[in-house]
């Protein structure tokens, strides 16, 4: 069970659009080490975790990652608001726009869709925590 809270974990107020940067930042939403993969990784690993403290922290971090992916999506949304057709073409945002217009779709910067193959759940605590460190360490 989850409840929504109608605020961002940290406020995002971007004044100027920039579709080129939006395309890079989008990877932090739906890329291999993005926030959706992080959330699914932690929330899926917790069922086989043998330690109660770690079940707790996987639940709470997996939940916090959802707040992160909402912030990243907000950044992409605010960077791409009200673009003109010229801005879309010139910035290289056209390939994304043709399939998704200004909607937010979870993909990596290179256009690869968000995919569960980007993380692992093995039911073994050492293996799973090593995988968490590899993924979250990669984005520090």
């Amino acid at each position: 069970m989850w409840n929504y809270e109608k605020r961002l974990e940290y406020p995002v107020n971007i004044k100027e659009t920039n579709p080129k940067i939006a395309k890079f930042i989008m990877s932090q939403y739906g890329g291999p080490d993005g926030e959706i993969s992080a959330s699914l990784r932690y929330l899926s690993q917790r069922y086989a975790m043998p330690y109660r403290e770690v079940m707790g922290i996987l639940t709470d971090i997996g939940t916090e990652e959802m707040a992160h992916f909402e912030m990243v999506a907000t950044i992409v949304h605010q960077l791409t608001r009200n673009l003109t057709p010229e801005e879309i073409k010139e910035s290289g945002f056209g390939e994304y726009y043709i399939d998704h217009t200004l909607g937010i779709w979870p993909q990596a910067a290179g256009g690869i869709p968000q995919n569960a193959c980007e993380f692992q759940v093995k039911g073994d605590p050492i293996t799973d925590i090593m995988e968490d460190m590899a993924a979250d360490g990669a984005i520090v």
Partner: protein
Amino acid sequence: MLRQNMNKNQLLQWINEVSFAVTEMTLYLDTHPDDAEALSYFNHFNQERQKALRLYSSTYAPLTLDTAQEENCWRWATEPWPWEGGHC
């Protein structure tokens, strides 16, 4: 500190601050469940957060359904969403 005369942005900023303390203490307590100092820190900021969320709901609009007390209009959907910006 929570003050009754805070404007909308100040109150939201306060909610963000106390919520950050609650979130971080939750993660710490998950692996340190017997730390008395951490427990009292968590309890203090959790109470401050609940107070501020209730005040925001009664003065402006609900941020959580737990604090929603809607009489004339369902503002949950009609008030701005977080990604629209314009907040502090």
